[in-house]
């Protein structure tokens, strides 16, 4: 593992400041072991309030029917499925960071992977609410499961993309949870070892699964991580592909498009990274973790954003080109008359501006490394990506084949908005609790890269740079 011992001098350090192993632990667990700040309480209360409003909104919807939302005969899906796709997309960054970047040995992932994975799990939890509660008869939701029943050979419909969703998302959630939790174990053990109260000892004791930090443990842990990373990697591509099938396999102009799978995956990673940025920028500030989530990290993520944003933009233009080139009246109308223009034209241009135009500013290094700008952009991108899903879903179905059924203007009801806010409540309540009780940065992984990529260690490496190849080899391989 020679390479982990050495990081080129030209590479930016991944951990800033004078850091020792102990300092790293102390820095990261500080917030866990002290009383929460007032800001944390305010944040949590707001989140819980939103969550409760969401619960009430769902209560209304379950009791009085989906008519509590402003959907109608033509627009059968609106905010519900828009939000579903949006949240699922957000989750993707976590998996990409933890799985794909692990396989590609991207050292910079260590600073953000823990929080990103947590974000994945909470986002998938939020996303999952929508397909469940959007059902007219949610109490029969179990019908989608292929369970043995007394009705003879009654199976769900394996041809339905919605059923594929069920499997895709449940698999995704299970694996993400396992991956995240297995990564947490060594750090939880650290917390257990430092715990002073009985409750903490018990809680972290159980949660750490008897981790002792033995070599065997580490070795198994490492293997497990690799296996899970291997399993998660295809998921990064498959989950959103399958979500895109909900639309791509339909007959609705604007949905029926073969470009959707790659387009959706790129969009998912795009929005996911934006969300990671939003969360990280707040976290590093509030928890004083600037040394661990460095400008280097931020810049790296901004690069991903500009890349995926450009892919998404390319997809938008391809869609338009095909709508024109395909010479299909219905598709042409769907794109050029009712998407670019028409009552919802504004949403298309919000999408274009937020997703395609503004991320191009990240070609400038100065802006990539500007924290305020990054923060604004991260929000803008997620607004844009929300509108992308809205545009795809609503502007396609609100005017489809038979003009007599074209819809009235669809705008959400208070309970539709409430449901969405409720998932924010769920997401942030989870995130606040997570950030209070678990290390938001993977301590052991930081330690893993500290001696190669820590600022103070890198400084000491100046001598190594000057050695000849042979000398260098001897020095780094002679232990």
């Amino acid at each position, binding site marked *: 593992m020679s390479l982990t011992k050495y990081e080129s001098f030209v590479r930016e350090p991944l951990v800033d400041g004078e850091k020792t192993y102990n300092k790293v632990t102390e820095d990261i667990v500080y917030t866990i072991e002290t009383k929460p700040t007032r800001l944390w309480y305010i944040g949590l209360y707001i989140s819980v309030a939103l969550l409760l409003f969401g619960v009430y909104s769902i209560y209304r919807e379950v009791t009085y029917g989906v*008519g509590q939302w402003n959907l109608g005969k033509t627009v059968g899906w609106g905010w519900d499925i828009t939000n579903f796709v949006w949240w699922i997309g957000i989750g993707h960054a976590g998996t990409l960071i933890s799985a794909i970047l692990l396989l590609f040995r991207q050292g910079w992932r260590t600073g953000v992977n823990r929080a990103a994975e947590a974000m994945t799990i909470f986002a998938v939890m939020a996303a999952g609410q929508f397909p469940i509660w959007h059902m007219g*008869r949610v109490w029969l939701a179990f019908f989608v499961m292929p369970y043995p029943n007394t009705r003879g050979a009654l199976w769900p419909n394996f041809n339905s993309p919605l059923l594929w969703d069920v499997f895709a998302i449940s698999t995704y959630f299970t694996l993400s949870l396992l991956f995240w939790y297995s990564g947490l174990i060594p750090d939880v053990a650290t917390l257990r070892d430092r715990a002073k109260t009985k409750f903490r000892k018990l809680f972290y004791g159980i949660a750490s699964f008897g981790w002792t930090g033995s070599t065997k443990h580490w070795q198994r842990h490492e293997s497990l991580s690799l296996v899970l990373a291997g399993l998660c990697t295809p998921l990064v591509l498959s989950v959103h592909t399958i979500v895109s099938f909900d639309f791509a396999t339909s*007959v609705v102009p604007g949905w029926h498009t073969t470009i959707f799978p790659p387009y959706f995956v790129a969009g998912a990673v795009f929005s996911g990274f934006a969300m990671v940025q939003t969360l990280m920028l707040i976290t590093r500030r509030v928890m004083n973790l600037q040394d661990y989530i460095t400008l280097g990290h931020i810049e790296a993520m901004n690069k991903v954003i500009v890349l995926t944003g450009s892919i998404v933009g390319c997809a938008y233009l391809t869609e338009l080109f095909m709508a024109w080139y395909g010479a299909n009246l219905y598709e042409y109308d769907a794109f050029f008359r009712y998407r670019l223009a028409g009552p919802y034209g504004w949403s298309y241009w919000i999408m274009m501006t937020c997703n395609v135009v503004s991320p191009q500013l990240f070609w400038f290094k100065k802006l990539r490394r500007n924290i305020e700008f990054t923060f604004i952009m991260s929000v803008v991108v997620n607004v844009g990506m929300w509108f992308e899903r809205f545009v795809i879903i609503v502007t396609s179905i609100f005017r489809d084949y038979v003009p*007599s059924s074209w819809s009235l203007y669809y705008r959400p009801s*208070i*309970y539709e908005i409430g449901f969405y806010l409720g998932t924010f409540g769920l997401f942030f309540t989870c995130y606040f609790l997570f950030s209070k009780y678990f290390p938001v940065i993977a301590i052991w992984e930081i330690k893993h890269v500290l001696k190669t990529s820590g600022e103070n260690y890198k400084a000491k490496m100046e001598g190594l740079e000057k050695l000849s190849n042979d000398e260098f080899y001897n020095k780094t391989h002679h232990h």
Partner: protein
Amino acid sequence: MELGMSQKQYWQNLGELKNTEGYRKLVKDEFQEDLPFEEDGKAIMDAKSPRRDFLKYLGFSTAAAALAAGCETPVIKSIPYLNQPENLTPGVAQYYATTFVAEGDVVPVIAKVRDGRPIKLEGNPLSFINTKSEGTSARVQASVLDLYDTGRLRYPVEISGIDMKELPSFEAIDKKIAAELTGAQVVLLTSTLNSPTTRQIIKDFLAKYPGSRHVQYDAVSYSGLLQANEITYGKRAIPTYHFDKARVIVGLDADFLGTWLSPDEFSSQYAAGRKINQKNPEMSKHIQFEGVLSLTGANADERYLHRPSEMGTVVLNLLAKLGGNVSAPAIADEKLKKGIEITAGLLNENKGAALVVCGSNDPNIQVLVNAINELVGANGTTINWASPLLTRAGIDGEMEQLVKDMNAGSVGALLVFEANPAYNYSNAADFIKGLKKTKLSVSFSDRADETSSICKYIIPHHHYLESWGDAEGRTGFYSLLQPTIAPLFKTRYFQTSLLKWSGNNTDYEDYFKNHWLTQLGNQGAFDKALQDGVVEPASLTFSNTLYSDAGVANAASKIGGGKAEGKAEVVLYQKVSIGSGAAANNPWLQEMPDPITRATWDNYAVISYAMAAELGIKLDDKYEVEFHKPLVAFTINGKEVKLPVLAIPGMHPNVIGIAVGYGRSEGAGRAASGVGYNAYPLVSAKEGVRQYYVTGVTGYKNTGDTYDIAYTQTHNQYEGRVEVVREYSLADFKKNPEAIPHYREELAEDFAKKTGDFKAEGTLYPVYESPGAHWGMSIDLNACTGCGACTVACMAENNVPIVGKNEVKRSHEMHWLRIDRYFASYRDNTEGDNLNVVFMPMLCQHCDNAPCENVCPVSATNHSSEGLNQMAYNRCIGTRYCANNCPFKVRRFNWADYNGADSFPDNQHHNGVGKFDDAVLMMNDDLSRMVLNPDVTVRSRGVIEKCSFCVQRLQDAKLEAKKSQDASVIRDVKTACMQACSTGAIVFGNVNDKESQVYKIRTEEQNHRAYYALEHLHVLPNINYLAKIRNTARPVGVKDEFAGEKATSHEGKH
């Protein structure tokens, strides 16, 4: 001794005695059936390894026990018959012939009665009044719901002030009223009455009270027509019209397909002349002159616009052009002038096969129209005097006199039956004043409506479905009423009251029977008449009547210049659904979209695009997609009237249309009250005859406020989507009759190269054969007039809920069958007289390659081997994916518990989002729910529903066929929409049956016009449409479609 006993053997048969093989088997198998668990010939306990299944059974029984104990079983109120009525099998429908009577209208019907409840009506095909078909109007279809109307009075009442006191018994009432009637001058005020027995009873009654009289008053007056006929033909009567015999039909402000006189009959006749025989394509030519786009105008080949005050001028000009001896004032409007010339030319060419009808209520105008008809040879050909119509007889002068007399205090007692002048009389205020001066007033209304609530007594009459009775819709054509259910409430025949009060102690029921027994001779004939429902001549006879042109000069002089005056004029029209407003408390009708505006639950002012522009209303996308419509203040005769406006094409720029029949009082019922604005007070009078237009609109301004109108169709053009709507002019169709077959062949070449069969090549999924029946439907766009009867018939048959205005506004209406209405042909050409209107009934297309089916995660919607796209409501979890993926948008989701069918208690009374209107709650009353069809599941909240092709009827037919071992029985099966359609636009049947009508239409009779909507999607619909053909020289359809087949062949394909 014991030995002797044991040797004694008792046996029942020889088999037992001899213990034969056969007997042993018989004994062994006597109780052969075992528990269903039996496997390998062994019962459960003897099975090889019951232990393996032990847990399964244990689990099942535990779960079952838990479910049985834990779930609350719903309480079902069911009461068994104490004495089962004869011939009644629970669950088997009975059919009775009876007659729909309302406000003079007579429609012989067959009532379907399930377990003592009438639930559905069809036209009586034995009657000429129905043109021997089962077709009916929306109003007739909906009238079954009126029986179960919660707004009906449940007992007779005495009214003092606002208090209504129940009267204990009819004897007490009779005593009281008889005393008050003594010596009084009685006026009997009714709508047109054409029941022979009732007329006799009235005659006897009036004789009893000297100085009394009978005044007939129609909510919407035909006085002008009646008076004119008296002048020119010497008969105060209305002839029957025969649109089927006319090659040229001219409508002058007459909505004869929608609301004028006998629209059902006329539609049926009209369609006969509009259907295309592709071997020799010909059709009648229909020209309409009007100011407001009517249903009839929408079906016309040519339309010319005029102000209502110009009607006389138009008629004079037409008469002059046809050679009438009148001088006609000049017409400034070039288009109108040209139109009259063209019309005159066509009429001249088609003498003896032409018909001009006029909806004006001005006797002078009608005299001139009679003169025109005389000149074109209509008298005796298309206008038949052999058996005049008796459905309208009210003369406005008589009503005017009555109101005067009442105010003068010379009316001793007023008895009101089926008339509501306090609501619909133009001078209602005077009538009300007069009524207050009248000492005794008795109403026989079924509810405390505007008039009856200010009478002294209300003695409610039975609903027609509870009644015996008779009606003479036209001279010599009788139809009988028989009760289909015992009276629901403490009500009494209006006729019985009259009989009692004239000292005759017979009940009307007996009176009626005696009358008809005498008339028909014997019980057998009477029974047959009841069974048939009608007593009519064997065939129609035609005759003309003596015409006198003595009145023409006078009429012409009275019309004079008739110059357009005022800034604009108002036309007061009737909606096809609500009509005069008498049935306004019928939620099915209120929720039936207006054929033209597609709006429900309201009236409003319809205006032209030009007037909208003048008012600063931008008819852009935003106008289209927002239901908040501008509220405009009109100054009409000095009074300000604020009304929401809907701008539609095809309107005269200076004409405003307002529907009557709205703005009912609270007493009319929960669905009617508070809906819309009452336009009757705007009705003007000319020489004492009511005129349904107003000239004095001096101004209008946009108030800036808005009012919500719940309409079901936002977009009015089909945007050149020829795959959806296909229309051609007659000339184009003749020139290139195979355009559609060519298009279809080309599709097959491109997408099903090998076999020509999309089904085999167009899908990934396995193809299943349907060897038995395969259901299909054909809808002729040329025959469909857009009247909407099918929509209501479908609601009645299939328990389709109403959702109320508040929910329609949110696009939550549930209609399984809707009629799409498109204006325009060319993309941007929708104005004025270039207007083409298409009516396209749209329902589930039952696609054989249905996009809804493969997206349902739980297979709740799936395909039957008979080609039905079916819904398993119990399986549906409500993801709505199917509805999104349906290219025809015919799937309806139960957004809330509209039916009270949900297991969640108390979920209909929420406030805020999705609040239910009163009408929805009314429909959930136990009384209203009696109309539900027990053969059709009432859907709960959260499931998708849609057209099932009336699968309950199909199953029933198959069962009948099985029982009678005669497959041809299936050939008679009709869906509710097909049955209700007067014009025969809808044909349903088994396409695997080569004798079936639908098969013949597709393969030989109409294959040149048959197309499938959105066929290029390869969803393989089981409904085909027949392209619309217009008899006009105007361009029709999408530009360049005929220029070359290749030019458009790629349009719309993948």
